[in-house]
């Protein structure tokens, strides 16, 4: 099982390599390579998921040594590997399914774009990154895949690189998530410091046996520090308050990218990190209430902004942030299983919403909802699927969003009842649920109902090809509650394919495996809170839809009048609470820009002038000394000197060679005579 997981990652990765190298020359620019690869991953992920459904429990792992480093006392071995548990099985199935559908959708949506092959290369790499993250059994490889996704996100947001805004958006996304990533890495370092490993299973075991409960790090309990750092990772990746600014801008990318990365999978990776490291967060003090606060604030603030947006994708982007806030809120209050369930349900219906919006944009060539309207008859499939997904996100009973969101809110209410000072968290949650219903139906009404506001665009609109509508239909099918919380009423499905409450069983198993405690309130409180929460969420959702219908369908309430009456609030929301202005004008221009100027000065004056140029001077002096030595001692004295000596000796000896034979003879006789004289003496 773990073996096939490796293949699940390897297939899209191979597709990326092929696409990046030769994609341009393949027939159809190689889109089929990527599509087949991800479909292959889906086929491999399915048996794992089916095993989970039939037995309610999968657990397999695979490890191999990555690095063996000689240490001081013992060798340090870093292992990497695969951990397949129930969470992984569900995520793998969801990710490969969504990614496959989005790949197929892209073949229609991106048709005829330049750099078509590169688009598929990027989304293949992205899929490989996400799948790698899901199967990683340790935080190091998880972090690598996390960064691969960050890179792909950057590349895909800036896919239309001719557009200045796309460039800015890609940079913004990359730099903003970087803040979270650095802290996440510090968290991993902290975990390694405390547990001596980054392996998740070993960390779970360590937490169970109470390791690290009395270790301190930077002046606070180590686990608290780690918990906060992991939370920051999630905040960056899942666009939580206060780092939510990048996600709306990320809509500059092609719409399938928005669906794949910025709704279904990558942003869910942040929440998935919380899920994977949940025991650590539980063992840490005061981290979870902070997580819940962040989630609640994000959900509420983003939902408010979504009310005033007119760009169809921006509305969905803010709704994504808001829904991610719900998940984080759920994690924070201890609603482990519903929080994770919301990741999955949200991925399905949000992918559907984004793809449907892509289909609309494809048809009318604008993203401004004010120029749409009356598209219901023109695009029936897109309308129907988007409507179903909207019912799901709005929390209408019978749809998947209701199941997960209602449980989160129920747990949050129970949490608020036991911690009265944090009662405002569930209250914010309920308000957000109402707002969600309101703005989502606003989107539906403005896009598909009423009369056409732009006759020309309306006239040319048409239903998208089957490659685009088929994924919509599948995803809309997954937006029904029965998929997640059975019973379907059909015996053969209930008994074999989708056992009733399969999700809860799977999550219960994994909770005991990981040692997750979850929300612990008395049964009475829980029961009470859940029935109350269901009533409240039904009321707020109904109210939201009703008000939305009155405002945008029946036009009984004038949106313009409201806008005028609440001008300051509208302006505040229109400017996204001035977060971007604060970051850009405040932090970046006031703080970082002067800092960069100082750094540049330092670099220029100290590093360049003193260190680099100074060393150059020293080298020059040394050079001249060595040059002199070489010139004088080696060349003049040693080389030329020996030559001169030989030449002089040669001149002396040459003088004897007079060429006069008799002179030689005289010398010979003299020497002979002298020899004779000395030898006979």
């Amino acid at each position, binding site marked *: 099982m773990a073996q096939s997981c490796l293949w699940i990652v390897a297939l899209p990765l191979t597709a990326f390599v092929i696409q990046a190298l030769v994609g341009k020359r393949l027939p159809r620019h190689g889109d089929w390579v990527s599509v087949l690869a991800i479909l292959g991953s889906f086929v491999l992920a399915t048996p794992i998921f089916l095993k989970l459904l039939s037995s309610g429990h999968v657990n397999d792992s695979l490890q191999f040594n990555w690095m063996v480093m000689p240490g001081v006392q013992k060798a340090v071995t870093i292992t990497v590997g695969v951990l397949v548990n129930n969470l992984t099985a569900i995520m793998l199935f969801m990710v490969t399914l969504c990614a496959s559908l989005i790949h197929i959708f892209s073949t229609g949506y991106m048709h005829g774009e330049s750099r078509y092959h590169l688009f598929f290369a990027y989304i293949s790499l992205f899929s490989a990154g996400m799948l790698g993250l899901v199967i990683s059994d340790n935080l190091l490889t998880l972090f690598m895949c996390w960064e691969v996704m960050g890179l792909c996100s950057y590349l895909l947001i800036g896919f239309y690189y001719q557009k200045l805004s796309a460039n800015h958006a890609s940079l913004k996304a990359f730099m903003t998530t970087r803040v979270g990533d650095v802290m996440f890495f510090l968290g991993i370092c902290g975990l390694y410091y405390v547990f001596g490993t980054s392996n998740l299973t070993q960390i779970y075991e360590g937490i169970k046996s109470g390791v690290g409960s009395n270790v301190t790090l930077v002046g606070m309990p180590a686990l608290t520090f780690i918990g906060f750092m992991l939370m920051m990772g999630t905040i960056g990746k899942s666009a939580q308050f206060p780092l939510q600014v990048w996600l709306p801008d990320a809509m500059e990318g092609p719409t399938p990218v928005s669906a794949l990365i910025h709704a279904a999978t990558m942003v869910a990776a942040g929440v998935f990190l919380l899920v994977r490291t949940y025991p650590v967060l539980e063992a840490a003090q005061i981290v979870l209430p902070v997580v819940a606060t962040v989630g609640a604030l994000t959900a509420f603030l983003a939902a408010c902004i979504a009310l005033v947006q007119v760009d169809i994708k921006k509305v969905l982007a803010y709704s994504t942030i808001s829904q991610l806030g719900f998940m984080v809120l759920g994690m924070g209050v201890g609603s482990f299983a519903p929080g994770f369930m919301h990741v999955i349900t949200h991925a399905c219906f949000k992918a559907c919403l984004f793809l449907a919006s892509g289909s609309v944009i494809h048809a009318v060539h604008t993203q401004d909802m004010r120029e749409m309207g009356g598209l219901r008859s023109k695009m029936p499939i897109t309308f129907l699927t988007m409507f179903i997904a909207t019912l799901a996100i709005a929390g209408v009973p019978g749809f998947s969003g209701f199941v997960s969101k209602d449980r989160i809110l129920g747990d949050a209410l129970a949490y608020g009842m036991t911690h009265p000072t944090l009662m405002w968290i569930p209250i914010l949650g309920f308000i957000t649920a109402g707002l969600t219903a309101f703005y989502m139906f606003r989107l539906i009404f403005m896009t598909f109902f009423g009369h056409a506001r732009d006759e020309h665009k309306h006239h040319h609109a048409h239903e998208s090809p089957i490659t685009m509508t088929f994924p919509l239909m599948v995803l809309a099918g997954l937006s029904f509650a029965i998929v997640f919380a059975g019973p379907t009423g059909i015996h053969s499905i209930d008994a074999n394919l989708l056992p009733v409450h399969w999700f809860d069983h799977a999550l219960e198993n994994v909770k005991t495996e990981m040692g997750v405690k979850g929300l612990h309130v008395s049964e009475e409180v829980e029961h009470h809170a859940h029935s109350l929460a269901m009533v409240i969420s039904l009321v707020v959702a109904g109210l939201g839809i009703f008000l939305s219908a009155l405002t945008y369908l029946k036009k009984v309430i004038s949106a313009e009048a409201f806008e005028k009456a609440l001008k300051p609030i509208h302006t505040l929301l229109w400017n996204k609470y001035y977060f971007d202005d604060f970051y850009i004008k405040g932090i970046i221009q006031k703080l970082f820009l002067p800092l960069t100027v100082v750094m540049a000065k330092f670099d220029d004056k100290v590093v360049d002038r003193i260190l680099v140029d100074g060393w150059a001077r020293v080298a020059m002096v040394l050079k001249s000394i060595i040059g002199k030595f070489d010139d004088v001692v080696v060349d003049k004295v040693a080389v030329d000197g020996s030559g001169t000596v030989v030449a002089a000796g040669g001149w002396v000896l*040459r*003088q004897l*060679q*007079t*060429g*006069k*034979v*008799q002179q030689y*003879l*005289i010398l010979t*006789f003299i020497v002979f005579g002298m020899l004779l004289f000395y030898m006979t003496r």
Partner: protein
Amino acid sequence: MNLLDFSNSIEGYLLVSSILLTLGIFSVLTRKNAIGILLGVELILNAAGINFVAFSKFHLAALDGQMVTLFIILIAAAEAAVALAIILRFYRLKQTIDADEASLLRN
């Protein structure tokens, strides 16, 4: 015994050969004419030949010395032929047989 009768002692022979050697060396060292030098060389060779014969006669009582002397005469003839040939070639080159002019290998 007559003072001047050297016939039965070696001194007479050695005296003659010494005179011949001295004359030969003197001629070789002083003559500028190449043929003169060649003649001097012949005198030296003959002095050596007389010595061989004399020592053979008085001290060996065998004919070894005489044998060597025959070789010396032979070699002297060959040497004279080669030397004369060189001198002729030299004359062709320099229009003179002055030994001092034969200084091409000087310095």
